[in-house]
């Protein structure tokens, strides 16, 4: 599917992104702490993804930003002003929900105009700006239709146009792509990225799909149990995760038993640098990336004997799982031209990339 080229873009003068800051935000539901003192600073125009498993608090943080949830303590600053006590409808934000958010009794163009109507924009100008917004998302011709006549992807585009037409300072997206087909998801995330960049609008994007977060965001905040575990560029998170949770959550890893000796991780005789906090000597589970393992010959340094367990063709590369002498399975990413058969014997070599490791009982 090709990208739909916009016929017009909205000008970026007003609505250029605000600075957004969460300071010490705490939110409790009864005895459960959904947000435990969250600190987050966003530059104008930045695109940040909140990533984590369900229940980690990412949606709560987003809804706190929007005002749909109140917070128990801390401050929420937009352009330096604390909005924690400002109601949602006065915060000048745009929000896209996961599904079902278009008003069913209004046409597409009426939906998009709604925010402008609330701001008492006169009719002719409303219509013009709404049409412009629809064309920006590639749906200029669909103004007279109703939500139930559109596909899921089209509905989300309308929701995006509706949220952006008022030129808010901040755009919040609550898992907007989770309910869509895979292909539509990929295409739409690119468009969201392009549009927010063109408009220069500060964007917060919540998702549980790490591939999605890494693909679109300037920076990603990985959350767990109400805390931000790490925030950084996708590259940083992938290459230098600060703890095993982040290492495991972002990208694929194989869990291989090893040992920490003198601050290094030793796996099958190969010494690897340790990521994150220094650890005491002892048995650990090392998290090894598939691209950090290579096929080798028997006489290579540090060669580990292995047998082929399973192999998958992934288009541009192959991923093969090997059974190691101690019974663990390791995934290796390699060229498609090597086509191992199940049961074949082979040798593997670990590249000297840093790995995360967690203590093993």
């Amino acid at each position, binding site marked *: 599917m090709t990208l739909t080229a916009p016929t017009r873009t909205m000008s970026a003068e007003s609505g250029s992104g605000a600075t957004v800051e969460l300071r010490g935000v705490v939110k409790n539901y009864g005895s459960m702490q959904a947000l435990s003192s969250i600190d987050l600073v966003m530059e104008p125009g930045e695109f940040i993804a909140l990533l984590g498993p369900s229940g980690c608090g990412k949606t709560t943080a987003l809804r706190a930003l929007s005002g749909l949830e109140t917070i128990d303590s801390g401050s929420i600053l937009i352009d330096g002003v604390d909005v924690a006590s400002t109601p949602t409808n006065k915060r000048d*934000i745009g929000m896209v929900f996961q599904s079902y958010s278009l008003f069913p009794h209004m046409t597409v163009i009426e939906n998009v105009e*709604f925010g402008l109507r609330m701001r008492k924009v006169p009719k002719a100008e409303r219509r013009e700006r709404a049409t412009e917004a629809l064309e920006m998302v590639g749906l200029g011709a669909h103004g007279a239709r109703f939500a139930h006549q559109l596909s899921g992807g089209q509905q989300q585009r309308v929701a995006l146009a509706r949220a952006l037409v008022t030129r808010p300072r901040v755009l919040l997206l609550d898992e907007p792509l989770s309910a869509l087909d895979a292909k539509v998801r990929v295409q739409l995330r690119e468009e969201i990225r392009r549009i927010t960049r063109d408009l220069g609008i500060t964007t917060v994007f919540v998702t549980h799909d790490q591939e999605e977060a890494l693909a679109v965001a300037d920076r990603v905040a990985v959350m767990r149990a109400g805390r931000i575990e790490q925030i950084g560029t996708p590259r940083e998170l992938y290459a230098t995760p600060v703890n095993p949770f982040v290492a495991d959550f972002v990208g694929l890893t194989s869990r291989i038993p090893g040992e920490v000796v003198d601050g290094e991780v030793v796996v099958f005789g190969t010494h690897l640098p340790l990521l994150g906090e220094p650890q005491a000597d002892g048995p650990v589970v090392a998290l090894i990336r598939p691209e950090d393992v290579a096929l080798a010959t028997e006489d290579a340094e540090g060669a580990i004997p292995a047998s082929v367990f399973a192999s998958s063709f992934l288009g541009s590369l192959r991923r093969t799982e090997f059974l190691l002498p101690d019974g663990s399975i390791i995934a290796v990413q390699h060229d498609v031209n090597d086509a191992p058969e199940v049961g074949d014997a082979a040798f593997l070599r670990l590249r000297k990339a840093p790995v995360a490791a967690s203590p093993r009982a």
Partner: protein
Amino acid sequence: MTVANAPVLVSGVAQASAQHPITEPARPSRRALRGLAKYAGLAPFAVYVVIFLAIPTVLAIVTGFFTEDGSFTLSNIAGLFEPLVLTTFASSFWVSAITAIIGAVVGALVCYALLGTRAGGALRSFIDSASSVLAQFGGVMLAFAFIAAIGSQSLLVLWLKDSFGLDIYGEGVWLYQPAGLLVVYTYFQVPLMIITFLPALEGLKSQWAEANATLGGTRFTYWTKIAFPVLAPSFFGSLLLLFANAFSSYATAAALVSQGSPIVPLQIRAALVSETVLGRENMAGALALGMVVVMVIVMWGYSVLQGRTSRWQK
């Protein structure tokens, strides 16, 4: 599938005997028989419905066009436009319309009050069950209940008389007249509204209220520009259902109204019980036809609005 098999039977026999002379000619017909046999499963229900629903309905509608001796006549239909009958239809119409509106508004308020209560919780299941019972609670029992509650010998009336000197029946005992039906019918109209309308109210998605807030709207704009318009088809559909329900009610009126036949169902009773009404013989059939016409129009409107509702609240 099975209908398609039937024509094949004819050519099938010819084919079968041409290609396979040894083939038993009974085989194609056995296949067709199995096809027909499938439909046989539907026969008991079909026969039952024809005898006890289709035939009585047709008879009810059609007898209005015939006199006692079987000749075709339009005089019964003409009788529908006599002042007496027109007044009866008007009374039925007013009683049904007013109780439908009151029932719809009060019922909608109760549904609104139930928003946010837990679906399986004690309050909700009690109201669900009570509404189911009271919506069915018509006829004789309801009449007795109201005679006990606000009849001329009831505690309430006597208390009002003794304490405030207020005799609500000073002008006549209206409980046993169409005005009384207004009060009594509301008793089952409100529960019926609750049963019918609550699903629609629960179909209001929270995302709509949240989107309204993020787009700068207030509670007022939510209700006036979003919730009411979305609920309108369902509300008016339920209103029509309530109208139909009151219009077709017989038992309560039969138990309460002892004098005369002020509404159509009672008029039908009079026509059935005595031989002639207005000097015509088959007025019951004509009146039944009149009722059916009204009911069909109302229920058609109801189904149209239901269709709109289900399209939006997917």
